[in-house]
């Protein structure tokens, strides 16, 4: 986003006007990082018409890399050529120079640089004390830095006040407007695991126009959780990032980060009771661009709607992953009373097309007080091969005459134990 106009190129007419009105000139330049000069190699061989001329020209060119003139990325630094873009979380740096264009000494110069955002006004000047005098052709320099924390229009307001030799007090201001843009697009998704773990998947997209090196993307968990980052594949000697060797994002590239959050033991006890919105934590993102231009953002607190378990929660404590066809197997269910009252539960087991429960259906489980839980072993068998869903459990609270249905609570792989037809 270009800042409107520019002070440092002063066209002639303005120079005259400025001189009539003010003895001092204010110049402002945004200090983005310098860039490395790239040259354009055009080579020939010594048998070609130009002979060694081209290579000699390239060797004499100060911007080429000596000894490897064909390498386009040189070492010569050039100053920023335009205002460029500025993104939320980056640091806005600017050179402010007040130059005495006149031929008289100017006194009591005060330069003030403020940044006006949509919500506040910040003073960026390094010092707020006045300079007692400024001789002709001299200047007052200031380099200001500000970490940008708001999106949208920003205005740098530079004010200069001074006293002329005749004692006249003069004052002028200049405004430099620029837009702060959003650098990243972050989307999140939560997965609730059976085990009270929460998996957070975060998609981070680079919506700037330049490549971005992701120096750090971490999840700072809230006090309730411990976090494990799942973005590294640990090889034998050192862990390697899932994103490969080069940790940078091209413009519009998206990367997915995965985190596993475990409730801390003291909170895990009450997991069955955690309800409603919980704060998971926030993502802390640090990136770098051209020659180490740094940016840092944190997301707002990520919130998750804890999965509601209703009045009664039925979870599985034990289940085999693979079972044999038509052979009974055991599972263990854990039934937790998540309501505020005591329940008297009856367990019914309904067969489905493939799942056949063994044992008595309609058995009394007895009274279950709030937050209490009980484990019950169950036996069942499957009559169909393949991946089968375990369904058909019904819990009835005899107090309220409410029935809770539990279907698809888990899946098992049912295989035929006879591997070959002969046996």
């Amino acid at each position: 986003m270009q800042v409107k106009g520019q002070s440092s190129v002063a066209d002639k007419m303005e120079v005259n006007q400025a001189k009539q009105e003010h003895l001092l000139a204010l110049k402002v330049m945004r200090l983005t990082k310098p860039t490395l000069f790239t040259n354009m190699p055009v080579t020939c061989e010594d048998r070609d018409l130009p002979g060694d001329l081209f290579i000699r020209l390239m060797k004499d060119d100060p911007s080429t890399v000596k000894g490897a003139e064909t390498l386009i990325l040189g070492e010569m630094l050039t100053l920023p050529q335009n205002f460029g873009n500025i993104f939320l979380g980056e640091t806005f740096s600017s050179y402010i120079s007040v130059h005495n264009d006149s031929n008289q000494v100017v006194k009591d110069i005060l330069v003030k640089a403020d940044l006006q955002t949509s919500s506040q006004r910040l003073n960026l000047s390094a010092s707020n004390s006045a300079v007692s005098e400024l001789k002709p052709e001299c200047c007052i320099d200031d380099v200001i830095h500000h970490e940008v924390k708001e999106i949208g229009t920003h205005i740098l307001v530079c004010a200069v006040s001074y006293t002329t030799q005749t004692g006249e007090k003069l004052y002028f201001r200049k405004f430099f407007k620029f837009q702060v843009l959003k650098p990243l697009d972050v989307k999140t998704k939560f997965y609730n695991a059976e085990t009270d773990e929460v998996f957070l998947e975060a998609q981070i997209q680079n919506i700037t126009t330049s490549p971005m090196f992701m120096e750090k993307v971490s999840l700072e968990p809230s006090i309730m959780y411990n976090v494990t980052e799942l973005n590294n594949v640990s090889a034998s000697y050192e862990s390697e990032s899932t994103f490969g060797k080069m940790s940078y994002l091209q413009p519009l590239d998206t990367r997915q980060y995965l985190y596993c959050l475990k409730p801390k033991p003291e909170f895990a006890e009450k997991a069955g009771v955690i309800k409603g919105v919980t704060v998971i934590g926030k993502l802390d993102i640090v990136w770098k661009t051209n020659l180490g231009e740094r940016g840092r953002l944190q997301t707002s607190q990520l919130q998750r709607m804890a999965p509601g378990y209703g009045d009664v929660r039925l979870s599985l404590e034990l289940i085999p992953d693979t079972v044999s066809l038509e052979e009974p197997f055991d599972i263990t269910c854990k039934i937790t009373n998540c309501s505020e009252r005591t329940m008297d539960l009856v367990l019914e087991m309904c067969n489905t097309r493939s799942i056949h429960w063994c044992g008595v259906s309609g058995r009394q489980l007895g009274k279950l007080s709030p937050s209490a839980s009980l484990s019950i072993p169950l036996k069942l068998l499957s009559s169909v091969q393949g991946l089968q869903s375990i369904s058909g459990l019904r819990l009835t609270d005899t107090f309220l005459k409410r029935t809770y249905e539990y279907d698809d609570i888990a899946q098992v792989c049912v295989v035929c134990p006879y591997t070959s037809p002969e046996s």
Partner: protein
Amino acid sequence: METAVTLFSVIYCFGFCERKFRSVHLTEGNIQAGLMDSSEGPAQRPVTLDIDGAGETLEASVPPQTDPTEAAFREESIDLDAEAFVSPQDDSSHSESLIDRLNDQMMESVMISDSPNSEEEDVVPIDSLLEQNEEKEKAKTPDGDTEERNEDLSTASAAEPEEASEALFKEENEEEKIVQVDDKRETIAPDDPKPEAPKTQDIELEIDTDTPPKDEAVPVCTIFSQAVQPKAQALIPDGFQPTLVKSPSFTIGNTETPNKLVPQVCQPSPSLSKFFTDNGAVNPATDFFDSFTTSTSFISISNPNAESPKTAVPPESPLLSAPTVAETVPTSTYFTPVATKPQVSPVEPMNKLQAVFPSGDDPFASALITSELDKRYDAWLPSEDTRKVLISVATQQISPVQIDREQLAMPGLKFDNLQGDAVKDLMQRFLGDQAAMKRQVLSASSVEQSFLGLKRLISTKNWRAAVDLTGKLLTAHGQGYGKSGQPTNHTTDSLQLWFVRLSLLVKLNLFQNAELEFEPFGNLDHPNLYYEYYPTVYPGRRGSMVPFSMRVLHAELPQYLQKPQETLDRLHRIKSVCQKILSNLQEGLAEDGSMMNLTQDNRLASIQLWRSRLSRVMYSMANCLLMMKDYVLAVETYHSIIEYEPEQGVQLLSGIGRIFLQIGDIRTAEKYFQDVEKACQSKGKTPNEDTSVLMNRAFVYLSQNNYADAHTCFSSVLKLDPKNPVANNNAAVCLLYLGRLKESLGQLESLVHKDPALYLHESVLFNLTTMYELESSRSTQKKQALLEAAACREGDSFNVQCLKLV
């Protein structure tokens, strides 16, 4: 469709989640991303996060808002108003697409739409302020000003035009600080429900929409409804909400051109020599060439013996052919180091040049070497079609006259206007005619009308005049303006002239012109670009008339015209030919795969040449990849060049390190810089005494924002090498970032005046003029002084843009 988010039991084993999880597909126009199948989905909600500035929470102690219901982080959360969705690409017209973007955004994100209103008194509402500003700007700007405003935008720093700001300043003085919120503000943030609305409200809204009333009414709740599963699964296999695709910036991603990699690999052709030997007869089409062009004398510049009767003797056998060729054709090209240098008087017209060349007195030995050199340098593998044509010509099956014109390269100048001298024009404009008169540069007509004059123009950096001269010489050869598409014959020299002309056009950044003139050459594989096509003019000579460097230039050109894929395609084609030739040589064959005997020396020399060519092509590839910002491949390619050019290892490793610094990956850059240090140590240098090590350190400091130490490092390079222009320039740049403008300026200025040969370079001058602009209002005068300095030394190819005068 049931869409409860949380209220009911969702009992799930995570291991099964991925398979079972189905979210209900969102129909178009459905708002809020949180919809899902209550019976199936674990609570997954793609949420576009609002991003707070880092460290915001630190400021929570001074919350500008008084609303007690808000949590600290919310108070600090940043207003994502409409401005936020402006894509970085569009600078001006963001208001048009604003509505669309907002709509998109509505569909996927939880908006936190309130911004804390600062209670600071000094706040001037931005929009009112800007409005005034812009109005004043418009009112005050006369029409003549627009041109100058444009130039402002293109240059370095950032500021309002002075008039406008000063107008504003006066206004402000009259009525002290207007504080008012105007309507415009609200239109900018249309999704702002209430100025004070806390974030919680949004979340409640979300829950409401997500929770269907049905679920609340029915006490017995079906937790899993299987009916929905397959449908949902079919729609969303990956489990992500479809809204993700509708990210406002996502569509832009498709603008990138798809990688079109259809490398037309050059088929290595079987030996041509066998066709020459198969047929004992000579191609008698001698008359043919004269009929094409009147300036035949030009042809013979490099082939003084072209019409010698000896040429009638063809090589007898592949084994014998090498010496035979040497004997019969002492084609001493002008550029061959062994060839005697011609003494050309400047005034001599072109057609007399022939006489100047020593024609018959080449000693036999040098002729032999020349022929070997020719063979080595000219070797190329034509495409299958071209090879067939060349065989037919060689075996006299067809006469070149019969060949379809479509298959021939018929170049001609595409423009013949003189290039002029931009420095002089600028001097005329800023310093007056008198000063401009003092500017003396060579022009195309003030030098010898020959290669000698051409070389003089190139070495004095008068590349524009050199382009003019190549135009003249090519016109003399019958390939002048408007001759494109007319049959001409090519010679070694005409192609060299084309090569020089096109190289200079590229050096002058006249890429469009270069592309236009390259166009008739096609992919440099037309039969008439091979020596075999002219058996009488170049008897026994084989291979490509197109110099290898011209092929590289041809390949490199498209990348400067935003067609880098084309460049890569062409470079890969060249690379595969190089590799084939190298493998031929290593298998004991000749370059073109024929069974010719090469002496061991020649073979080694040839292998060395083709390896260096291969590395040149790889350099071009790496450079192109770097320009495409494909850093992974670029780094890989640069790294592989070290194998071919071990003596450039230090420079290459440093270069790769700088690439990583450019990306921002300082840690990896440092690894490469350590490799450089090791390489230096192995050469017996201490790291502190090596300029490249010090230079690399300086760049690392620079990337850490440590300009002071970077400056120290550049200064220590200068202690070792006081004339190092890069270190001098970079030290000055560091000084500027340290707030020492005057010092920096003084340093650069004195360098330019003390040693103009080194410092009148566009990068240095650009830095200097930028600092002039920053320093005072009199930058124009100072820039004019630079222009004068440049005018005394630089040729017409000087890039005046770096002075930022226009």
